[in-house]
């Protein structure tokens, strides 16, 4: 890079101040006094050129004043004329972009990170005996320890290069530059350099920093841009893994949703591999149209209660770092469903809850208790759902309050119509927004239809197009429910009268069914979807990822405090870190990590940064992430040309003194022009 680089560019912004003499001249000029005079003949005889000369002198003085101010400002900006002169020892920080995009190919076919490491190796080799150098990674990588601070140890620096590998993360240029500047701030050398070796992907470099960074005085910043070879094959990125929106119970099979984005202009034929916490592997092929996305269902099994995880990986595409995703969750042990009343009152619902009766297949165990104080009589963990016959229990204040508390803590309540002929009580608490209406009956049966298909209750019954797969169903007799705005109808008659509705009560849900779930009242229990509907109601309302953490590569584990933590990689390479939580490192690669304290262990899932596969790179010399910094941009060719360029840059001249001298000359010349008589040497009179 050639040209003039200022160290304190803030003074350059003040250069318009050099125009002040002109403003003063124009606005503050001396007013002329009008004087009548007998004759102008003697003035005209005097020297007609004097006025013109005076005017020229005035303008010359103005120009010299402007030059004086401009030179002073330029001198204060400490300009460095690159390419002319010789320098002393140099402190340099090499900022290596090890983000996911650097795993892409350079024009020579090698990956860009390898080219970057070659460049760094060349610069290390070019170090003088008094030079110091530090390496900073755009993405902190625990797996790649590098020497701390500025060092002269070439061997240690070279050894660290071998440990630097590509990551799956997006870098943070502002943080890395701040680190680089802090290192250079400790340097005692006059010349300081920052060399950024990157592919200038816009994901990282197109965003202007939130706060302007202030480099140490005299720091020359150069971004060496490595060109990128376009992908030959389509690239597909793997999005977040979405788990079912319900409590996951141990010993059951589920399906997670994962989004595949084909960013290229060709159809992609990829294979999606998944592994669950039980070690069970699945693989499926998928074709994705160009520049399109596809949501894929990935089966997995919850083998045991406690923490579980699911990893999903993609293969057969052009770019690997955005092919990894995973999720962790908390799996509940077998859950109880409390039926308030004898089994015969609830039709086929107990059978739908657990066909085997002991929760072997469903993970749900039906428990039957008397109507009076159901919640108080269930030992151990609270049931996942309470099934009531009618709203009689709500008339008891103590039980109503207990049910409300149970709902607010995440429990679910299903209310079926009361005993035939018994009218519903009028003393139902006001927080219950669903009421039973007048009874309807039809021997031929009234058809049912599904409402609010996006509700979590329908998750297991929804097909790819979003329709709920519920076969035609009829109702013979029912108590239609009356709802308010707070309640959401799920099933209704053809005329829109709700039959099944849900009311959210903090974390839990209150379901009210206007139809008895037996074959005499409706054909619904005869449908295969009935079991899924009952399970959807029983397990709804809980987030399986609650208590587990999923992060994107390049982020730190969340919710860590000052306690001592041990972070270990559960998949992939060996990685172990121990220290206070506030200093926890970023997790650079996708995978599963365990975060342990003295008494707890949590699982952190890290997925790839999906934007790293975008083929958008900054082509111009304007790099928004370097806004406010006087940085040059250079196209990286190879190590030798890089070293040559750096040598040229280092042979720069500090123009502070020349500009200062020029300012002094301008001041002297201005003084001479404005007041020539004062500078003339007065002749001593000759003594007789």
């Amino acid at each position, binding site marked *: 890079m050639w040209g003039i680089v200022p160290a304190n560019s803030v003074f350059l912004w003040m250069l318009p101040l050099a125009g002040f003499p002109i403003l003063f001249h124009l606005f503050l000029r*001396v007013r*002329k*006094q*009008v*004087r*009548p*005079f*007998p*004759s*102008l*003949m*003697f*003035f*005209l*005889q*005097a*020297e007609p050129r*004097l*006025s013109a000369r*005076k005017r020229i002198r005035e303008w010359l003085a103005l120009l010299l004043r402007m030059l004086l101010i401009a030179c002073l400002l330029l001198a204060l900006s400490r300009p460095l004329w690159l390419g002319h002169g010789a320098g002393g020892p140099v402190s340099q920080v090499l900022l290596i972009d090890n983000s996911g995009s650097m795993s892409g190919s350079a024009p020579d076919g090698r990956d860009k990170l390898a080219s970057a490491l070659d460049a760094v190796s060349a610069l290390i080799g070019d170090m003088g005996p008094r030079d110091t150098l530090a390496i900073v990674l755009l993405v902190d990588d625990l797996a790649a320890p590098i020497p701390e601070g500025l060092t002269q140890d070439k061997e240690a620096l070279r050894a660290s290069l071998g440990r630097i590998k590509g990551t799956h993360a997006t870098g943070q240029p502002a943080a890395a530059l701040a680190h680089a500047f802090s290192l250079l701030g400790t340097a005692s050398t006059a010349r300081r350099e920052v060399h950024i070796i990157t592919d200038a992907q816009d994901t990282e470099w197109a965003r202007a920093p939130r706060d302007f960074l202030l480099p140490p005085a005299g720091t020359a910043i150069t971004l060496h841009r490595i060109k990128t070879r376009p992908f030959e094959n389509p690239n597909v990125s793997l999005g977040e893994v979405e788990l079912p929106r319900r409590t996951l119970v141990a010993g059951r099979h589920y399906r997670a949703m994962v989004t595949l984005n084909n960013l290229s202009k060709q159809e992609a034929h990829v294979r999606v591999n998944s592994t669950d916490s039980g070690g069970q592997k699945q693989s499926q092929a998928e074709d994705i149209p160009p520049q399109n996305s596809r949501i894929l269902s990935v089966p997995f099994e919850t083998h045991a209660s406690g923490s579980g995880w699911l990893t999903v990986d993609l293969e057969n595409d052009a770019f690997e770092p955005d092919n990894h995703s995973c999720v962790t969750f908390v799996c509940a042990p077998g859950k109880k469903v409390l039926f308030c009343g004898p089994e015969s009152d609830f039709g086929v619902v107990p059978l739908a809850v657990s066909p085997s009766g002991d929760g072997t297949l469903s993970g749900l165990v039906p428990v039957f208790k008397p109507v009076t104080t159901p919640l108080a009589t269930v030992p151990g963990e609270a049931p996942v759902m309470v099934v009531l016959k009618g709203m009689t229990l709500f008339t008891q204040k103590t039980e109503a309050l207990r049910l409300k508390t149970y709902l607010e803590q995440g429990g679910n309540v299903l209310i079926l119509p009361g005993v035939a002929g018994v009218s519903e009580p009028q003393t139902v608490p006001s927080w219950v927004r669903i009421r039973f209406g007048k009874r309807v009956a039809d021997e031929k049966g009234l058809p049912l239809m599904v409402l609010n298909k996006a509700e979590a209750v329908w998750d297991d019954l929804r097909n790819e197009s979003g329709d709920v797969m519920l076969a035609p169903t009829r109702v013979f007799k029912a108590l239609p429910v009356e709802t308010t705005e707070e309640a959401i109808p799920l099933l209704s008659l053809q005329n829109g009268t709700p039959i099944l509705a849900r009311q959210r009560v903090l974390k839990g849900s209150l379901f009210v069914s206007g139809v008895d779930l037996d074959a005499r009242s409706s054909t619904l229990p005869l449908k295969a979807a009935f079991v899924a509907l009952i399970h959807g109601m029983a397990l709804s309302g809980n987030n399986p990822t609650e208590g587990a953490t999923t992060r994107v590569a390049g982020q730190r584990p969340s919710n860590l405090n000052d306690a001592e933590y041990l972070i270990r990689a559960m998949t992939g390479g060996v990685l172990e870190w121990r220290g206070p939580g506030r200093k926890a490192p970023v997790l650079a690669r996708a995978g599963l990590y365990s975060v342990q304290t003295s008494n707890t262990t949590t699982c952190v899932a890290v997925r790839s940064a999906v934007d790293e596969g975008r083929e958008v790179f900054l082509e111009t010399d304007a790099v928004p992430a370097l806004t406010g910094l006087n940085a040059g941009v250079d196209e990286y060719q190879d190590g030798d040309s890089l070293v040559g360029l750096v040598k040229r840059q280092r042979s720069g001249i500090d123009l502070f003194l020349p500009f200062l001298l020029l300012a002094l000359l301008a001041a002297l010349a201005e003084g001479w022009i404005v007041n020539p008589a004062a500078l003339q040497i007065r002749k001593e009179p000759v003594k007789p």
Partner: protein
Amino acid sequence: MTQGISVRRPVHGIQTGFHRSPHHGASIEFAEYRAYTPGDPISRIDWPVYARTDKYLIRQCYEETNLRATILLDTSASLAFRDVGPMTKMEYGCFLAAGLMFMLVNQRDTVSLMAFDAKMTKGFSPAGTSEGIRPMLEYLETIQPAGCGDIEAAIHEAANRIESKGLVVIISDFLQHADKILRGIRHLHHDGHNIVVFHVMDRGERKLSFGGVADLRDLETNARLILDVDEVREAYEVAVARHQETLRAVCADCLASYHLIETTQPVHTVLSRLGSS
């Protein structure tokens, strides 16, 4: 010691006075001897000379006559200037003219007044008494300086009007090129007049009393000149001094008496000096 205005060259007067006439007449100042010619009165023969030389010679003396003075007073607009002095140049010129008139009348000379700018604007007949100069004095009180001056033209015109050799007093600020003024004065000299020049100036004209950037307006032409006075001060004063020296030299050539007067000088002092010179 009596003071009065005297002249160097003979003048044509109309009555006996104190000034030498080009003609011979009765006076005590011997002029020459000439041979007796028949017809001359015998009483005029210088008998002591006949006793020594045996020749009839007649003794001749100079005639003494009075002076006919003409005051040429410049009334151009530039005379309205006043800077340092207590009065304008015009006022000063009027006082000076009036004083001269009194002096001349008191020594039984006659005086007339001619006012001019680019040409004669007013002329009075000669008067030899105090009562006779009253109209001129009254006119002096009413003069308002105006118009562009042309001294040369005015002098030529005056020279043509003045019939007999006498005294011509010019009171002006002489703000015209010296060569032109020279031609006018030579005309008067050629006509045989005695010439007295009063160059009236304000001290502020000779030494500029102000500085800085000034927008100067010519009182006569209303021309405008913007300049830094400090820058041209020295050159200006040199030009003024050169002009004065040129006028002084011109006057010396024409046997004219040149008087540079600043308006700060009392008029009676000037007249007194003139009378004793």
